């Protein structure tokens, strides 16, 4: 049987008739270019009537695209879709990513012609409804964070980080503090934090958190006053709170006070806002600027890797330096996009147009649906679910930092690794059991991290099933039944893939 023949090269695997390996409902699907080209494409367009050209250049003769009919295109993508796991399939406890339910109402709203088919440069009189959506979302995000200056432009979390740090930088520059070049970042931070600081030409100074999983005032002081300094070289700090170990930073207010006294700003990475929304305002624990991932906390779909949306919220001290444009309400009640030329102290434009408007709409639909009472329940259920998992698994897996946790809990493979079952094996075992793994090997402050974020949109039943599978893994490892773990997954569309080969012999596009 073809499927059982071990193939060593991509060329051989590609030249086989892949479609012959389809079994039952498990479809194999080749590339568009590997299909026999049809006489006509999957669209019927009117024939051009005019052969003259006014481009000033020769017409292109070939592009190199495939050509197949509409049913072939539909079948191609539907078959490919069946190879994906999604939040609508089941449990998706990917720590730090907040894979919650994506309401379809949001999709319906974003597709209303009055929203989907308007152009970002239309006269403002013709897009007042869209501007109102943005204005209301700005106000609500300002209220939820108690950081009342809001710019919706950033396209994703990392873009929001860039916006936030550049807002800080701009403020320092215009206030004679341009010499400040250091950003304090805990070692548990997302990789985007140091990468963003580097993009802003800042130097990173690391705050160690390995001992307790939290930033302590002591460690913070050491970083702030490093080399006998007075902290006046520090532009700001970037802290995720709750942090990436799933813990609330208990001493954050003291740290923020010290930072503020030294003249620095506190940037909060809002990736974990789902633990706080509707209940706790970051502006009330010392934060000066924060980005919000609409695709995490506010339910806009991840889409297999975007689009995201990363609005930033700042307090009054930073409002004047926000990126442009922002939406303002004029005296006559009409809404207006205030651009770079109207905001001389702004850090500037970040993106072609005013942001991922479709995501702004979805987030607003979600917030209106939940309301203040619902959002409070969101964070409480998210925190409850994570603590429930922690309480049920703490005997079976190593817990590096004692709870309670916030909306995600951190375990490691310390109890399993010695007999050769690692976090990777555990992740792949979850796949075999029809679940998406947790976030693995992050944060970096512990070895073999498993960061589990159930979110509030899971029932106790689905969480219990995850707990059962995890307990079974731990029990099997304990009884010495470990060999099978290295082979998982067996039932997914693919077994483990050779990532080394992919990196050493990169094949990044189809070629004839």
């Amino acid at each position, binding site marked *: 049987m073809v499927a059982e023949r071990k*193939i060593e090269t991509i060329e051989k695997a590609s030249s086989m008739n892949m479609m012959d390996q389809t079994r039952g409902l498990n479809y194999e699907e080749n*590339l568009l270019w590997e299909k026999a080209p049809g006489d*006509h494409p999957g669209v019927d367009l009117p024939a*051009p009537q005019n052969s003259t050209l*006014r*481009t000033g*250049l020769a017409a*292109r003769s070939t592009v190199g695209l495939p050509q197949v009919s509409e049913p072939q295109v539909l079948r191609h993508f539907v078959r490919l879709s069946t*190879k*994906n*796991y*999604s939040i609508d*399939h089941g449990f998706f406890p990917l720590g730090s990513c907040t894979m919650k339910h*994506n309401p379809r*109402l949001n999709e319906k*709203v974003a*597709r209303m012609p*009055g*929203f*989907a088919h*308007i152009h*970002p*440069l239309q006269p403002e*009189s013709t*897009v007042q409804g*869209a501007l*109102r959506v943005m204005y209301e979302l700005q106000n609500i995000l300002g209220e939820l964070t108690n950081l009342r200056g809001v710019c919706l432009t950033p396209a*994703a979390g990392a*873009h929001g980080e860039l916006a936030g740090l550049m807002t800080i930088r701009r403020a320092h520059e215009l206030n004679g503090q341009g010499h400040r070049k250091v950003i304090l970042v805990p070692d548990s931070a997302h*990789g985007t934090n140091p990468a963003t600081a*580097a993009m802003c*030409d800042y130097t*990173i100074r690391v705050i160690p958190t390995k001992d307790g999983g939290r930033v302590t005032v002591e460690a913070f002081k050491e970083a702030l006053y490093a080399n006998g300094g007075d902290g006046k070289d520090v532009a700001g700090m970037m802290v995720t709170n709750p942090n990436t170990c799933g*813990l609330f930073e208990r001493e954050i207010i003291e740290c923020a006070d010290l930072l503020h006294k030294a003249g620095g700003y506190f940037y909060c990475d809002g990736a974990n806002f789902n633990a706080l929304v509707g209940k706790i305002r970051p502006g009330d624990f010392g934060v000066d600027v924060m980005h919000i991932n609409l695709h995490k906390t506010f339910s806009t*779909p991840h*889409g*297999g*890797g*975007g*689009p995201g*949306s990363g609005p930033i919220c700042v307090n009054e001290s930073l409002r004047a330096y926000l*990126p442009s444009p922002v939406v303002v309400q004029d005296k006559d009640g009409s809404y207006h996009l205030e651009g770079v030329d109207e905001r001389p102290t702004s850090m500037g434009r970040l*993106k*072609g*147009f005013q942001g*991922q408007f*479709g*995501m702004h709409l979805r987030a607003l639909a979600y917030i*209106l649906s939940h*309301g203040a009472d619902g959002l409070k329940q969101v964070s409480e259920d998210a925190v409850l679910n994570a603590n429930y998992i922690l309480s049920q698994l703490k005997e079976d897996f190593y817990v590096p930092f004692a709870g*309670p946790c916030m909306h995600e809990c951190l375990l490691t493979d310390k109890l399993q690794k010695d007999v050769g079952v690692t976090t990777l094996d555990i992740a*792949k075992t979850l796949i075999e059991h029809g679940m998406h*793994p947790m976030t693995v090997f992050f944060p970096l402050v512990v070895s073999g991290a498993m960061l589990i974020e159930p979110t509030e949109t899971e029932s*106790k039943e689905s969480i219990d099933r995850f707990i059962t599978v995890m307990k079974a893994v731990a029990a099997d490892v304990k009884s010495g039944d470990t060999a099978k773990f290295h082979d998982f997954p067996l039932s997914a569309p693919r077994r483990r893939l*050779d*990532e080394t080969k*992919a990196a050493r012999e*990169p094949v*990044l*596009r189809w070629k004839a």
Partner: protein
Amino acid sequence: MRYLPQTQKSRAEMLAAIGVASVDDLYRDVPKSAFIQGYARIDNHKGELEVERILGAYANENQPAGEGPFFLGAGCYNHHVPASVDYIIQRSEFLTAYTPYQPEIAQGTLQVIFEFQTMIAVLTGQDIANASMYDGATAAAEAALMAMRVTKRDKVVVGNALHPHYRETLATYIGNQSGAVLTEGQPDPQTACVIIQTPDFTGTPHALAEWRKLCDETGALLVVVVNEIVSLGLLPAPVEADIVCGEAQSVGVAMSYGGPHLGFFATKEKFLRQMPGRLCGMTLDADGKRGFVLTLNTREQHIRREKATSNICTNQGLMALAFTVHMALLGEGGFKQLARLNHEAAILLADSLAKVPGVKVINKCFFNEFVVELPKSAASVVRELAQQGVIAGYPFEDNRLLVCATEMTTDTDIGIFCEALREVL
């Protein structure tokens, strides 16, 4: 509360299992001063019908393309999207999946990215392309930063009429690098790259051979920006470029008041390891079956942290899917035909506007948009026509108007536009 499956009973059971009396006990690490009791301006929860009514009313306050003649382009284009595209991108398996970090259960997304990368590489005449960027403006900014890394130089030259928002975005990104310079003109031996938009902001397509020569003489990279990707079905592939980047919203993606759109980024193989963004590569699984993974991530922020080529993480995955589905439907023949239809519509528009007294067509050459000069303020003309339901174009430099025609533009639309112009001029 319809999105919350927990019940009072399940919550109580879980609290008991944890061993705490209330959920607030779980928040004991949070300082008391940070809790809020309520929000002044946020109501309590609402049903689906109510939310739909509220936002539907806002939608009705806008004047979308399709309600009247529409001639606005300038980096965002009104094109037809086949019904199949939206059906595919709304499938749960694509819509609600995460970034494909677990490739065994993400082959659908990964193969789509591989096909997207191939399509972009083929369209731009480059060797390789990444999995997408936020939009055209940020793609151009990332291209400039990459050129600075490759050449170890810090001067970025804008060679022709670049979209003003792209220029502003570049200034923001470049301004972060100490010593970096952004200027207009021609490359010199200190130049990291020269940026050429084609068709440029005023709609004129550009030949690249001369720019290639200047770059070879100075050691600068040639960055070509394309923000109307449909033009690549009629204009020559920019093979001379070292980096081709821009905006692909035109294929498969709604205008949506400015986003989400679809940035793309393609380059030569020799620059592979300096490229920003995610890349998908082909490999084999443990059974020897062909499969796909995200690869070369040692360039990326989650591995390299402050030494990464970019901080980009989440990109425009679902829009890349929309593009790939639409492009698969168009195919080789349909894509070239679509480009022709756009050009043909623009020729008809130009010839019709030229007959309106006082209107002068400035461009000799164009693809699907061009500039006309009016005898009065273009901004006021745009406002006046908007009141009559005509979205006339992008006004700039007092009396200039950038106008665009696509396959959506009908002869009737052009007739109404010309008539309305005659009345206001």
